[in-house]
């Protein structure tokens, strides 16, 4: 399963793709089971050059409770820095935040697709 993420151009905020628009909560992100629609969304996102910077797909794991990014780096982006729980998206709280914060037993890195650009 995949999701599409980027940083918003005007303020740097971490955003996720959701059916043609960008949302700030991972919990509202569109999750792609198949590759084709994910790639389509990525292609479309890449054309939104005045909206976001460097959109990319990430791997997502679905648990009984809900979904979370596989990569630890991506979980941090979806939550905020661990040294200041009052900053970032984690401060909003909610079930989707709890799921990401307690995601365990999944890889802490990797999961960012197409990270290495091969010449």
């Amino acid at each position, binding site marked *: 399963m995949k999701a599409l993420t980027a940083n918003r151009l005007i303020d740097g905020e971490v955003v996720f793709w959701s059916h043609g628009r960008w949302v700030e909560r991972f919990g509202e992100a569109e999750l792609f089971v198949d590759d084709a629609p994910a790639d389509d969304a990525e292609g479309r996102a890449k054309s939104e*050059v005045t909206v976001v910077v460097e959109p990319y797909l990430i791997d997502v794991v679905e648990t009984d409770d809900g979904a979370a990014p596989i990569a630890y780096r991506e979980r941090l982006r979806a939550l905020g820095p661990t040294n200041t729980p009052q900053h970032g998206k984690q401060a909003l709280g909610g079930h989707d935040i709890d799921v990401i914060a307690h995601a365990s037993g999944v890889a*802490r890195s990797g999961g960012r697709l197409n990270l290495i650009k091969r010449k």
Partner: protein
Amino acid sequence: MYQYDVLDKEFLADRSAEFRHQVARRLAGEITEEQFKPLRLMNGLYLQLHAYMLRIAIPYGTLNTAQLRKLAWIARTYDKGYGHFTTRTNIQFHWIKLRDMPDILDALAEVDLHAIQTSGNCIRNVTADPRAGATAEEVDDPRVWAEVIRQWSTLHPEFTYLPRKFKIAVTASAKDRTAARTHDIGLALRRERDGTLGFEVMVGGGLGRTPFIGKTVREHLPVDRLLSYLEAILRVYNRHGRRDNPAKARIKILVSQLGVEEFTRQIEAEWALIDAAKVDLPDTELARIRSFFAKTDFETPTRVSAAFDAARLTDPSLARFARNNVHAHKVPGYAIVDVSLKAIGATPGDASAEQLDALADLAERYSMGEARVTHEQNIVLPHVKLDDLPKVHAALKVAGLASPNINLISDIIACPGLDYCALANARAIPVAQDIARRFEDADRAELVGELKIKISGCINACGHHHVGHIGILGVDKKGEEFYQLTLGGSGAEDAEVGKSLGPALPANRVGQAIEDLVEVYLRERKGEERFLDTFRRTGVEPFKEAVYAEAH
């Protein structure tokens, strides 16, 4: 400190207006991100994990009260109420919005601050001894020379696109508080027996993936030849430094590959070709710059302060603070005060807007309007009267800035790590917080004595882990945060790259490992030995045994 003149101010205003225009064009889609990225980086603006990060240059770590207050205002207005001081004596704001950047640059320009050359493959902010102008140890004020280099290197057309970034540090004391030998060029001012001032020029130091301690290419460069000699070094580097591989592009690689003799020969040959009269600074200009740093308005209070001596007898916390954070000043009756940004459990190097304002107030009232940033992510109040120490200490306590732990085990350097940085592999801040909490007992920390722990969240080594007495490097090992420990490094005058202790440890074993290392040190140490001295005498074995014993 140096005062901007009309030309300097006009230049900053122009530069700010230029960036405002560039941001507008980017938002309007007139330029692409690929075109915009180098422009924003030239103005210190990175895109990190959660937001943009703005890195502001603090030349030779010196700030006046107006600048401190402006930084506090920016923290409050445009960030989340705090700033982060770095190992390059700069300040970073971690939650900046692109749309606010033009206004932020305007605000910075009002107090002669900017973010130029805080990124990119150019000569970066020049750092200097944070005790400059205050310590009796120095042979000259290194800020004078750092300012000379700042003016020379700012927008230097020949050195704007170097193979890689370039960092210079200047010290003028035998005790090195700038980590000079870990810089691309380290300059150490020395006075010869005949009384002349000269620089020991060290080239090719650097940390990162391939750590090197800088090699001396000149024992005694006459000070009036500084700029032409720097130009010769930069030219050799610019011509021969590798541009095909960023990991091998720093000058340290060139020095290492050519060998120091051949590299020195090439510098000297290049130097001979330079028209020195066009490059070296005229005496009149040097005198002009020097005049900004000459402080003559010290009062002449008595050598000892009855008020301070009485206060520390009755207040053990002041006595402890004085033992660890207060240092001799060149003028009798004054002291240099180190302000720790390493409160137990806090993020190393972070200062809140309220703390920045408090530091501005203290600098204004008690330290001739000046504060310094250290490469160890602390602040210095350089000119405090002994009589005022009790008041300064009390005010620091109120601001949460009175941690009496300078150079002790909880005075840890840590980079922002994976909590903020797009390059990091692992977190650094929580590791520092855990270690500091383990050594929260101030008596125990003092018993352990000087012990420099430095933590980086990736191999780029912003946290200087290679030169920590104990260095900690975060690595990504099969998807988990692991940490490699090195021992015996030093960034001071006895600079050395630390030696690996053994296989990387999982995050939850690092704190205990540090405790084990300290126990070995306390068991093995002789007399007044620091951790580093004991390690150098015993070697790695007893330490290795303690940490990896269970695995045997």
